[in-house]
């Protein structure tokens, strides 16, 4: 099947700087795709090219089979966009805002059902500018959904939210999956990408530095685990069996081992400790978190 979004060698140059330095992307139908990267990495520039708001310097871009630079009304009928910065319609209630936007489309979704989808039933008659930040963002999602698009762009949908507003927003975005929508999400929150996305591409300095599922991004599934513990007094790292000594990565009060097969090595460690009659109460085994991977991937940008 033809991908919903397909990008080859996309480049956007501002003066002497490549904000986007030749990226390739593909997003499949029904997928929630996260475009993850620090501020200024080129996320918004890319998404605004895909939305048809910006021109590109070079490269090939196709969104629903159309070049967004020449997207017409028929194309806009099939694409929804939640922009990074857009305020509420002044002087209109939540319902009226949706009535205004639904008039723009040929076959819009039902207004009440859309209000319910973003959880604003109780605010339907409230003036849109009086909503809280999180509620306003959900109204934005409703406005992007009202035309019943196949593809929705969400540009940093939860930036600046408190934790409970983020949870609610995530719930709404997750609900788009059930509607069968394709979602293109940009974010600089690693946990947001991990929570929502089927697939993640990490962008840094205008280039894609890694791509994968939340579980495999950056080779995370193949990365070594760390085993850490504190030895009791009178015992030193040198006393460990040779098999474990070979894994020694550091000793600063706590011993750190890096292991490709943590189960076998923890077993060996346990056997050795039991033989000497000691316990290791602060033993911990840790796989790298997505955050570790992300920080590693984007380190040069920090």
């Amino acid at each position, binding site marked *: 099947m033809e991908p919903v979004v397909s990008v080859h060698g996309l480049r956007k140059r501002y003066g002497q700087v490549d904000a986007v330095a030749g990226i390739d992307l593909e997003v499949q139908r029904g997928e929630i795709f996260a475009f993850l990267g620090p501020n200024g990495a080129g996320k918004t520039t890319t998404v605004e090219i895909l939305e048809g708001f910006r021109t590109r310097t070079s490269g090939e871009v196709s969104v629903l089979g159309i070049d967004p630079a020449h997207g017409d009304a028929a194309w806009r009928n099939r694409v929804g966009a939640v922009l990074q910065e857009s305020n509420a319609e002044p002087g209109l209630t939540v319902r009226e805002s949706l009535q205004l936007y639904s*008039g723009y489309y040929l076959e819009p979704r039902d207004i009440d059902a859309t209000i319910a989808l973003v959880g604003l039933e109780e605010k339907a008659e409230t003036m849109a500018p009086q909503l809280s930040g999180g509620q306003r963002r959900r109204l934005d999602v409703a406005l992007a959904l009202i035309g019943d698009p196949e593809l929705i762009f969400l540009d940093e949908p939860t930036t600046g939210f408190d934790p409970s507003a983020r949870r609610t927003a995530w719930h709404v975005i997750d609900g788009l999956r059930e509607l069968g929508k394709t979602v293109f999400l940009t974010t600089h929150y690693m946990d947001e990408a991990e929570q929502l996305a089927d697939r993640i591409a990490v962008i840094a300095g205008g280039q894609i530095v890694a791509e994968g599922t939340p579980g495999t991004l950056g080779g995370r599934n193949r990365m070594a685990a760390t085993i850490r513990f504190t030895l009791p007094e009178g015992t030193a790292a040198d006393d460990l069996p040779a098999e474990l000594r070979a894994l020694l990565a550091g000793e600063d009060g706590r011993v750190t081992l890096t292991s490709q097969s943590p189960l076998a090595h923890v077993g060996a460690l346990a056997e050795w400790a039991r033989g000497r009659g000691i316990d290791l109460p602060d033993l911990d085994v840790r796989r790298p978190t997505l955050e570790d991977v992300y920080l590693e991937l984007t380190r040069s940008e920090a």
Partner: protein
Amino acid sequence: MILLIRWLLRRRRERRAGEPAGAGPTAASRGRLALVLHQAFYDLRGFLRNRQGRFFTLVLPLLFLVIFVAVFGNNKVGPGNLPARIYYVPGISALAVIAASFVNLVISITVLREEGILKRRRATPVPAWVLIAGRTLMSIAVSLVSMVVLMLVGRFAYGVRLPTRTIPGVAMTAILGSISFCALAYAFSTAIENEDAAQPMVQAVMLPLYFISGVFIPAVTLPNWLRHVAQVFPVQHLSHGLHHAFAPATTGIGIVWSDLGVLALWGAIGLAVALFRFSWLPKAATG
């Protein structure tokens, strides 16, 4: 007047409440005109809920009329030695048209642009010209309503009678003036960097023009050179066109073709600048 519009809106809402939700074809599927009216209706609703917009557009012109007539109403003005109250009804009417078509429009489109609302609307299938036509239509309607209110107050409170035969002249001058000032508003908004600058910049341009264009002060009392300066700008021609239609000595339907010509020319310049420079995206855009 506001009450009347509110009543109309309420009636429409009640009629709609009877229909099942989502029933019937959408504005977009009923054609271009339906879509323009749809946009104008929601723009008008938003405008009527904006206290500041209502005050500057509908209340302030009325206040000006009352104050100027109270202070200068019995002075005699011009070659015809007319009482000044006959002078102020058309003069302040010109101000009312400009307040709705230019001042309010510049401020509102700057706000909509800077808050990303125009950009979001452009992400939908609605054609750009529908957004412009809808808001322009709303501004013209508000201009005319505001002007009619001033004329009614002039008629019944001050006995300033508009000659029936010049009604076409007044209507044409007001409508053309309103269209031209709307076009100028779209052009002028491109020079404004942010929302806070809109109101001061608009007033900085308009206040001096009101003074030299026969809106606040009868043009006959101004020095010649100042009148020549004023004649370059559209405010003078809107104000003069309306004064002419109100003057009891006027014969015919009250149209001053040269004034209409200058207004149309300014409108065309505004349109050209707007087409060339208007942007839907915030100027203070990030990244």
